[in-house]
């Protein structure tokens, strides 16, 4: 077998003799002939010899390099094709015990260059070869050889799965692209970081596809760290919880701009279509100070699809047995080498009335949503600039209530009980990032966001309107102290929120302005220890001047382990009506019991969060597995208590006494066999608050939860395969708020029954362009038979729609397709 390398550093015949004798003494080299004029050495070898091995032999005096094909000399493509076809034919007609193929340099134009001198070897053997001038190779093959390692200096080493001795055509990526190339092969759909100081989970778009439907709130169903509640009886909205605390205590951001907050708190997650989301980072515990002081239980950041990386065309159609229909279309195009733009259209509608439990109320609301986003991306890698400009528009209409309710005649009357929620929202945001191309650790980021949110709604006789105008600005500078183990982030931000509400027959107006400065230091000793410490100072017109400290640490004493600890403080103003607007769908009388505070007469909420977790990766029967234990405690210094313990009232008041949320979770991820992943988790919550009537567990918060998810993918054959996914959720009994003040037929038990649900989905990938999915939610058809208290008398004093502990509709099946063009 012959190998040819370029040798540099030779000057005369002495060098030639030196090299030849040195190389001939190398193992497996039978002869070496140096040609001084072409600076090449031709080796006759018994087994392939790696470049590094030769380089050792030659020490530092000469350098050995594989020969790259000279682009001017490359045979024209037609001839190339001819050669490939010819070699293909020759393989099929001759030996079956040989595998042949061509290795190319991956390139963006349609003119791939063959690589001369690329090395390949069967994994675990010493059987190898290298490619000739046309990039072609032939290598002995038998069915025990499964993985072929292809390497070439300056290119990323690839491992090719070989199933048969079919001719291989493979493209190697240059390593210079390595920073941008995301490794696609066998990427875990959800991964926890062993290295980050924060307890952060990255949810990739693969994971998001496991639950085909439909918006951000539903995309957490296969994730054990986020609990998705059952949708409530009137609005059909699903609330999420983390560490036993509801979404207002979680900072939810899109591309690091806080987005689900204020007026959009209740429905905001359903305003982000699932297909727009590229990935999600979930951080448990206090999180970073960079995005503000509001986060208490954790942070969720959704990264949206980007015009330069998203498919140029994407279509997703979804239809469910409930007659819910959804459409998602993306168009992306690049306008110049720097500018790209994308238009993203989402529409959903559900117009059929269902009443499976015969209580006279719709099981799910009628709704329609139009959601548009236009993104502009500017990238100048040479100068180090990246910028995004986003425009969003949303219109969402919901109608719920009794079957015979007609909004035109019955709105705000006692003819029939009904509800309508109409929301319009505009958003404009811009981001500019600059990374100094000379000094990669220096970067500056500027974020600006403006949103206008307008909701008009009524629930029976309760009218609720909210208008929220919000401005968010953030300027951040990143650098290092001394060396790149010590990183700092520092910056300032300004937020402005103007609220104009009409609730419980009164107008509430409020303007919040805050100006803050933050600094975050992170230390990484490159091995066992990382630390992130942040501090921010804010001056807020209603919350006053205050300091927010946050600290995260990681320690990895042995391999594949991570002990993490965090502590942090959060502060926020509670939007009592917006966050609890589901309570308007009841006969409860609203009262605010304090009057001295600055927000609805109430004080700001303040809480400390402490957490510790332990992640350990290991091998079980030779397959990768990991287990995580985590414990978090949130301690409220002040909380706006939402007291439902009298069935005719809802009282809001400042916390007096204890309020805390303890959560413990153990999670196991196991790759049982190739392409089969199993994930299971047990969660324990102890969430208690001192109410006026005593210290009680938070209503509708199960103490125990069990979660299991299994996913399997078949091998990809001819670009097509099957994917299967099943999720099981089990909840222990949940406490009902006291109903003892109701008339006897409307007095509920103290606790709900336990409940278990199964979701499943099958996806058939026909090609990288086209796939079809079919799934079922709640396929065992579990139902809560009487979700509405006093449904037959909705204007009586016991009417309440907020005792939902399980699914209302029963099982639902859906099907859909995805079509994408790169």
């Amino acid at each position, binding site marked *: 077998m012959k190998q040819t390398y370029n040798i540099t550093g030779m000057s005369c015949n002495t060098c030639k003799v030196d090299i030849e004798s040195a190389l001939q003494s190398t193992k497996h080299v039978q002869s070496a002939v140096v040609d001084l004029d072409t600076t090449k050495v031709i080796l006759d070898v018994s087994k392939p010899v790696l470049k*590094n*091995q030769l*380089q*050792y032999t*030659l*020490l*530092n*005096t000469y350098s050995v390099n594989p020969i790259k094909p000279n682009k001017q000399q490359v045979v024209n493509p037609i001839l190339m094709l001819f050669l490939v076809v010819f070699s293909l034919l020759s393989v099929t007609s001759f030996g079956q015990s040989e595998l042949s193929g061509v290795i190319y340099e991956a390139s963006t134009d349609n003119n791939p260059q063959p690589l001369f001198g690329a090395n390949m*070897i069967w*994994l*675990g053997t010493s059987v190898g070869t290298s490619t000739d001038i046309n990039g072609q190779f032939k290598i002995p093959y038998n069915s025990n050889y499964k993985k072929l*390692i292809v390497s070439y*200096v*300056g290119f*990323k*080493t690839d*491992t090719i799965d070989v199933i048969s001795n079919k001719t291989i055509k493979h493209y190697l990526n240059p*390593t210079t692209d*390595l920073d941008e190339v995301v490794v696609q092969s066998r990427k875990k759909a959800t991964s926890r970081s062993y290295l980050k100081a924060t307890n952060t989970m990255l949810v990739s778009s693969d994971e998001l596809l496991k639950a085909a439907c439909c918006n951000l709130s539903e995309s957490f169903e296969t994730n054990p760290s986020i609990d998705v509640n059952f949708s409530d009886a009137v609005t059909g909205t699903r609330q999420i919880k983390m560490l036993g605390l509801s979404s207002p205590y979680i900072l939810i951001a899109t591309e690091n701009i806080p987005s689900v907050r204020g007026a959009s708190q209740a429905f905001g997650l359903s305003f982000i279509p699932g297909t727009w989301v590229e990935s999600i980072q979930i951080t448990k515990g206090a999180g970073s100070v960079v995005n503000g002081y509001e986060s208490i239980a954790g942070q969720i950041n959704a990264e949206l699809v980007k015009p330069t990386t998203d498919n140029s065309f994407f279509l997703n159609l979804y239809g469910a047995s409930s007659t819910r229909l959804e459409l998602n279309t993306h168009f992306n195009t690049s306008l110049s080498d720097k500018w790209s733009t994308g238009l993203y259209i989402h529409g959903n509608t559900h117009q059929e009335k269902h009443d499976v439990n015969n209580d006279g109320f719709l099981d799910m609301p009628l709704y329609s949503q139009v959601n548009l986003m236009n993104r502009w991306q500017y990238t100048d890698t040479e100068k180090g600039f990246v910028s995004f400009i986003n425009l969003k528009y949303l219109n969402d209409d919901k109608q719920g209530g009794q079957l015979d309710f007609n909004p035109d005649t019955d709105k705000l009357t006692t003819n029939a009980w009904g509800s309508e929620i109409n929301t319009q929202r505009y958003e404009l945001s811009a981001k500019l990032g600059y990374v100094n191309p*000379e*000094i*990669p*650790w220096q970067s500056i980021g500027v974020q600006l966001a403006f949103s206008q949110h307008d909701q008009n709604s009524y629930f029976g006789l309760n009218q609720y309107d909210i208008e929220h105008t919000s401005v968010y600005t953030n300027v951040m500078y990143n650098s*290092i102290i*001394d*060396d*790149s*183990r010590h990183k700092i982030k520092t910056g300032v931000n300004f937020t402005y929120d103007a609220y104009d509400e009409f609730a419980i027959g009164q107008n509430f107006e409020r303007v919040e302005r805050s100006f803050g400065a933050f600094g975050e230091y992170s230390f990484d*000793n*490159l*091995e066992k220890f990382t630390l992130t410490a942040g501090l921010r100072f804010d001056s807020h017109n209603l919350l006053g001047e205050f300091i927010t400290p946050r600290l995260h640490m990681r320690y990895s004493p042995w391999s594949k382990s991570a002990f993490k600890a965090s502590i942090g403080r959060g502060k926020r103003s509670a939007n009592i009506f917006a966050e609890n607007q589901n309570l308007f769908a009841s006969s409860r009388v609203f009262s605010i019991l304090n009057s001295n505070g600055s927000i609805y007469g109430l004080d700001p909420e303040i809480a400390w969060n402490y957490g510790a977790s332990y992640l350990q990766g290991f091998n079980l029967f030779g397959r990768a597995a990991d287990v995580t234990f985590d414990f978090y405690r949130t301690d409220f210094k002040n909380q706006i208590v939402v007291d439902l313990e009298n069935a005719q009232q809802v009282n809001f008041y400042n916390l007096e006494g204890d309020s805390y949320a303890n959560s413990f979770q153990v999670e196991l991820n196991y790759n049982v066999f190739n392409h089969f992943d199993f994930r299971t988790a047990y969660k324990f919550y102890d969430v208690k608050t001192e109410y006026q009537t005593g210290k009680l567990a938070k209503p509708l918060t199960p103490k125990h939860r069990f979660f299991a998810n299994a996913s399997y993918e078949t091998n990809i054959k001819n670009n097509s395969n099957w994917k299967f996914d099943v999720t099981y959720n089990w909840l222990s009994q949940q406490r009902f708020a006291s109903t003892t003040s109701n008339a006897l037929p409307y007095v509920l038990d103290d606790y709900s029954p336990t409940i278990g649900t199964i979701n499943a989905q099958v996806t058939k990938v026909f090609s990288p362009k086209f796939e079809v999915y079919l799934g079922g939610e709640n396929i065992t058809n579990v139902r809560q038979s009487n979700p509405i208290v006093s449904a037959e008398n909705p204007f009586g004093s016991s009417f309440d729609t907020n005792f939902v502990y399980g699914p209302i509709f029963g099982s639902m099946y859906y099907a859909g397709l995805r079509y994408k063009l790169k």
Partner: protein
Amino acid sequence: MKKIIVLLLMVTSAMTFAQDKNKRETLDVDGVCGMCKARIEKACFKTKGVKSAIWSVETHELKLIYDERKTDLKTIQQSVLNAGHDSEGLKASDEAYASVHDCCKYRDEAIKYDHKKE
């Protein structure tokens, strides 16, 4: 006199020009895995003046940014060698090589292939 001043100015400006605060260099360093990466990068930071050191497991390329006024490439390369990693034909001493973890014995072909499975 004038000439001397001009000369002095030229020399100092040339010196400041030559003394780059953020000098970029690359070195080929041998190693096989993430443990090697941590060891190599840590070794670089032992030298005062090294601001960034990123070693790639795939390409064996060590990308350095350092303050030329405080250190030079030879010093950094020496600390890499002292940590037990060969660089650009310079071999680490046997003691230094012996100190690297058993799974990082990058001179051994068998270990190299073991790591390629990862």
